[in-house]
């Protein structure tokens, strides 16, 4: 059933009791052409684009818990394409373009809201760095605008412009950036994939891989039995090292915890997404009114999905430094998600050294915005055995060959990216 004003009216007249299930909760079959491990946004998007772009519909997405229950439910919903390096920018812009048409493609309201992002700068050197990044974006055909302090005042008059330590001198603005509804993204992709015949299998955790005599991966062992597969794709960011280890692989990745916070619901006050340039703090406001904000990762290896107080203090200090009025808001909830922190801060979409096994990993804390392009490019790789043209830099062997994509220039120290 297509969602439309007519289906809405018809269901309203029948008391909303006849809505069909949004997607099909499948039982595992014996074999598929492609098995995707991980029922988050990236895995489900991959399944959707495999079916939509490549006609490969004999596909299963297997998920150890429930779909969207991992990092897809633990992010801060920001979408943007304001990267500086040539290996990144075309990919994230492709993702941005897919966001812009996603609701029509999926026939599902994922609440894409292009409310803009402003990255504040607080020094001459930072202005130069942002001008350079904005120019790099424009060279890739992406909108970017360098704002003066007065321009920022018009956008967000409540910021602390005259702070002695961190005066706000302006910002780098991307108007097409914004937010999307994280769980709607998961369900939208699940519905679209399911309608094309993809099996979505929940409560099915991978416990090992099936290898043929030559060592190629030809299936997965799961808590619901063995499933044979022509190809296996991993989309389990946060746990990539654990799952890859089942196939005997070591990855250039550490798992770290990233915390985020939401305040009580408030009237509309934050116009878009705002990031502090002198510390790590970013904030937006959800459509329900909560202020959604976060900062740095905790900085030590963790799979615990919860963080510690020093980062809570650091995030709150950042918030108070840039917008003192946040001190009046009460925090409603906080949570932690587990990030695949790669050794250069950029993702991996590539074949693994084992035939039949493909990796979609290393998203650091930037995975949500990448969801559509990640699925698109991973599906392209699984279907054609070639990297998509926007994802050619995300190779697994770049660490060995020296072709790193290090936006921060922090080196092989994952907790600094």
């Amino acid at each position, binding site marked *: 059933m297509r969602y439309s004003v007519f289906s809405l009216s018809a269901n309203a007249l029948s008391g909303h009791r006849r809505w069909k299930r949004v997607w099909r909760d499948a039982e595992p079959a014996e074999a598929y052409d492609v098995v995707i491990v991980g029922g988050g946004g990236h895995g489900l998007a991959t399944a959707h684009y495999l079916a939509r772009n490549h006609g490969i519909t004999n596909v299963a997405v297997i998920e150890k818990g429930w779909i969207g229950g991992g990092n897809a439910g633990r992010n801060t919903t920001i979408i943007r394409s304001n990267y500086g390096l040539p290996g990144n920018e075309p990919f994230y812009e492709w993702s941005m373009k897919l966001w812009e048409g996603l609701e029509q493609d999926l026939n599902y309201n994922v609440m894409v809201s292009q409310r803009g992002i402003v990255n504040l700068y607080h020094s001459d050197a930072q202005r130069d760095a942002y001008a350079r990044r904005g120019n790099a974006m424009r060279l890739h055909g992406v909108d970017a605008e360098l704002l003066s302090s007065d321009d920022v005042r018009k956008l967000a008059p409540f910021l602390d412009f005259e702070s002695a330590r961190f005066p706000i001198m302006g910002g780098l603005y991307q108007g097409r950036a914004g937010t999307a509804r994280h769980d709607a993204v998961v369900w939208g992709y699940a519905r679209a994939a399911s309608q094309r015949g993809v099996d979505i299998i929940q409560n099915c955790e991978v416990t090992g891989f099936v290898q043929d005599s030559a060592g190629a991966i030809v299936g997965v062992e799961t808590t619901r039995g063995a499933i044979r597969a022509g190809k296996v794709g991993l989309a389990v960011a946060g746990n990539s090292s654990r799952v890859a280890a089942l196939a005997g692989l*070591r990855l250039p990745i550490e798992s770290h915890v990233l915390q985020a916070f939401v305040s009580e619901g408030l009237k509309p006050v934050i116009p878009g997404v705002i990031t502090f340039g002198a510390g790590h703090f970013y904030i937006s406001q959800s459509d329900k009114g909560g202020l959604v904000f976060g900062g740095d990762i905790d*900085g*030590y*290896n*963790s799979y615990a999905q919860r963080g*510690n107080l020093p980062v809570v203090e650091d995030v709150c200090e950042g918030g108070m430094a840039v917008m003192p009025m946040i001190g009046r808001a009460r925090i409603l909830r906080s949570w932690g998600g587990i990030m695949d922190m790669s*050794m250069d801060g950029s993702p991996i979409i590539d074949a693994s050294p084992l035939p039949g096994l493909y990796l979609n990993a290393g998203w650091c804390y930037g995975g949500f915005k990448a969801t559509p392009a990640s699925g698109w490019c991973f599906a392209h790789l699984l279907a054609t055995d070639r990297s998509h043209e926007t994802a050619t830099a995300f190779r697994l062997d770049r*660490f*060995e060959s020296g072709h790193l994509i290090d936006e921060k220039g922090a080196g092989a*120290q994952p907790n600094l990216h």
Partner: protein
Amino acid sequence: MRLPCPYCGDRDAQEFSYRGDAGPRRPEGEDGLFDYVYLRDNPAGPIRELWYHANGCRNWIVVTRDTRTHEVHGSSLARESGA
């Protein structure tokens, strides 16, 4: 999270800087350098890891900690544990 510094006693993790897995050893030559710099076991469970007590005794220590729970099982001075 509080870490047991062998010299200072239990201290908040905020006083320390994190280096990561204490396992990898720098090889003598180029062989194995890529593994040493880039590849990690990244275990879900106990890990021996290097922390520097920057706001304390300024010593590197090796902490054994469970990455699933943040439970700390012990620590020693890095120079004494050969890390």
